[in-house]
C-alpha cells in the first residue's frame, strides 16, 4: 500500500485504544490544525531513491559509531532506499596528512561501493600546498567534489584562501561542501573548543564566483536567521537538511507547512543529507515523511536537486 489515508487507517486500527482515542481527537483539536483535505493521487510510480549528500566514512575521533565500518554503513543506507551517498572522511577533521586522508577515502569508496559512495576529499587551508590537494582530488582520484571542515580544520570563513578555493572548484567543475557543525558544542570533548562559524564572510567570494557549486552542510543559520536570509538572498548557496530541527522543519523551511509560514530556503536549493553515521539515517528520512510535502517537493529533495549537480556514474 503506497497511500495511507484516514479511512484506511481507521480500518486497520479499529478496536485498539489508540484508534478510538484518535477518532475522538479528530473532531476536536485536529480540526483546527488540518488544512482542507487534498488527497494525494494513488501512487503508480516507483518510489524515488534518495541521494544522501552528507555521509562520512571511517572513525569519528570521539566515539565508536554503530555504523562506522563502511560495509555496514552502505547496507544501512541502502536499507533506507539511499541510492547514492556523497562521502567525506572523519580523518579530515584532525589529520595533518591530507593527501593520505584523500587517498584512503578514494580507495574505500572504490573498493566498497563504487558508484554508490562518491568520495568528497578535503583540503586544509591552514596547511601548505593545499592547491595540490585540490589537483589530486580532481585529477588523480577523480572526485566530484571537496568537503572542508572550518573549525576542526584551523581556519574560518575569513581565511584568505577561501576565495581562491571557490574559484578553483568552479574552474574545475567541482562541488564544494562546507561543514558548519559536526556535533552540538554543548557535548564536545573538553579538549575541543571551536569558535561559532560565521557564514557571512562567504557572501563576497560566492558573489565573485558565479556558477560555483557550493553547499553548506549541517547549517541552519544563526538564531536570528539573518545569515541564512543573507545567503539565500545574495548568493546561490545550497544546503542540506541534516541540521533542520523542529516538527515539520522541512516544510517550514521551504514554505510548505500547514501554518502557511513563508519560505526561508528555495526548494531547488535543498539537498537531502543525513549526517550518518553520526546521526541515525532514520531521522532525516523520517523528516521527509513528517513534513506534509507533495510529490514534486519530495522528488526534488530526495534526488532531483542533487542530480542537477552530479550525474550518476
Amino acid at each position, binding site marked *: 500500500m503506497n497511500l495511507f489515508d484516514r479511512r484506511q487507517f481507521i480500518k486497520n486500527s479499529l478496536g485498539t485504544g*489508540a484508534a478510538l482515542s484518535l477518532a475522538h481527537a479528530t473532531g476536536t*483539536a485536529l480540526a483546527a*490544525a488540518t488544512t482542507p483535505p487534498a488527497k494525494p493521487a494513488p*501512487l503508480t510510480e516507483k*518510489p524515488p531513491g534518495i541521494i544522501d549528500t552528507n555521509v562520512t566514512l571511517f572513525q569519528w575521533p570521539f566515539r565508536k*559509531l554503530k555504523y562506522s565500518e563502511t560495509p555496514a554503513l552502505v547496507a544501512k543506507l541502502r536499507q533506507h532506499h539511499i541510492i547514492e551517498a556523497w562521502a567525506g572522511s572523519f580523518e579530515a577533521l584532525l589529520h595533518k596528512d591530507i593527501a593520505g586522508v584523500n587517498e584512503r577515502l578514494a580507495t574505500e569508496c572504490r573498493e566498497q561501493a563504487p558508484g554508490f559512495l562518491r568520495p568528497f576529499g578535503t583540503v586544509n587551508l591552514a596547511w601548505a600546498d593545499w592547491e595540490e590537494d585540490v589537483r589530486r582530488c580532481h585529477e588523480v582520484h577523480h572526485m566530484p567534489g571537496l568537503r572542508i571542515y572550518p573549525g576542526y580544520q584551523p581556519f574560518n570563513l575569513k581565511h584568505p584562501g577561501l576565495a581562491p578555493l571557490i574559484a578553483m572548484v568552479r574552474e574545475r567543475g567541482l562541488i564544494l561542501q562546507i561543514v558548519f557543525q559536526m556535533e552540538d558544542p554543548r*557535548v564536545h570533548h*573538553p579538549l575541543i573548543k571551536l569558535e561559532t562559524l560565521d557564514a557571512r564572510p562567504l557572501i563576497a567570494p560566492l558573489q565573485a564566483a558565479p556558477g560555483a557549486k557550493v553547499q553548506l552542510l549541517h547549517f541552519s543559520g544563526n538564531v536570528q536567521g539573518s545569515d541564512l536570509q543573507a545567503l539565500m538572498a545574495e548568493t546561490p548557496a545550497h544546503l542540506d537538511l541534516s541540521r533542520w530541527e523542529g516538527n515539520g522543519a522541512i516544510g517550514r523551511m521551504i514554505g510548505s507547512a500547514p501554518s502557511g509560514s513563508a519560505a526561508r530556503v528555495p526548494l531547488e536549493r535543498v539537498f537531502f543529507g543525513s549526517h550518518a553515521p553520526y546521526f541515525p539515517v*532514520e531521522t532525516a528520512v523520517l523528516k521527509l*515523511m513528517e513534513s506534509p510535502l507533495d510529490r514534486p517537493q519530495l522528488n526534488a529533495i530526495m534526488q532531483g536537486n542533487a542530480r542537477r549537480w552530479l550525474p550518476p556514474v
Partner: protein
Amino acid sequence: MSPHDFHFNPADYGLPTRDELVAYRIWDSHFHGFYGAQNPIEQFHANQFYVERMGIERSISLEIGGTLAAPLTPSPYDDAIRQLLETHQDRLSGLTPIEPGFPDESCEKMEKWIRRGPCIGIKYVGGNKSGTTCRHPNNDPIIRLAAELNATIYIHTWLKIGGTPRLPGRDNLPGESTPMDVAALAQRFPGVRFICGHSGGDWELGVRVIRPHKNIFLEFAGSDPHSGQVDYAVHELGVDRIVWGGHGPSRSYATEIGKVLDASLSRPNRMKILGGNFRGYAAPIFRQKGWKITL
C-alpha cells in the same frame, strides 16, 4: 493535506508506516506544545497536525500552570490550558513545573494542580532564579508530597561543557540539575521513582551516573540524535528504565523517534521505550484519578 496522507510509503524507505507508529502506542513524556510561543494555545493546535501525522497516542506537557521561566507565577493562559487538559484528557496529560528554591509554594502548587487539578506530576525546570538544583534539601518536602500523590517526577538535566578547566556540567545554568544531582536525590528517596531528563545531554556520561540507581528512569529527548545512544542506554540500564520524549514542537518527532528506530531492539522492547515504561510509571496516578489506562 490531511495529516494521515503520505505521497510515498514510509515502508519503501525502511521506516514504519503511520499505522505501525500508532501501533507502537507512543507516549510523549516530554511535550512542549505550550512552551515558547506568544500564544501557547495556538501553538498547541498547530502542533496537533504533527501529533496526528506521527501517530503519537498521548502527549505529556511539562509546562502546566505558570511557565517554565516563572513556574510559581500564574500564566494568563492557565485557565485555557486547564480546560484543554480536561477536554483532551484521552490524549493530553500535564506536569506542573515547580521551583525548589520555594518548597512551600511548590507544594501548594502541587496541591492545586495535581491533588485538586488535572496534572499527573511535576517538572524540574532547566534552571531557576534561586539557583537551586534538585540535590538541595529544599526538595525533600516536594518529593515527599509527590510520593504521596503518586506523581511522576521529571527532572531536566544537562552536562554542558564549559568552565576552566573545561568539564561537562560547568556551563549549566544556575539551578540546572545534572544527572549527579538526580542521583543524589534518588539516593535519599530509594522508594520514589524519577526521570532523568535529556539523559544529561551528554548521554555517555549521564547514563553511567544514574546506572547504579534503579529508581531513576532515563529520558533522552531534546538533544541531537546520536546513532547508538539508545543501544548504549539499554545495555547499561536495561530496557525497562528508558522512557521516550518527543520535545516537540522545538524538536522533530522524526528526530526523537529516529533515535529509537536506530537501536537494535525487538518490537516489544521498542514499545516499552516508546510508551510502555511511562505508562507503567504513571498508572498509579491515572487510577487514583479514576482515569482509564491500558498498559
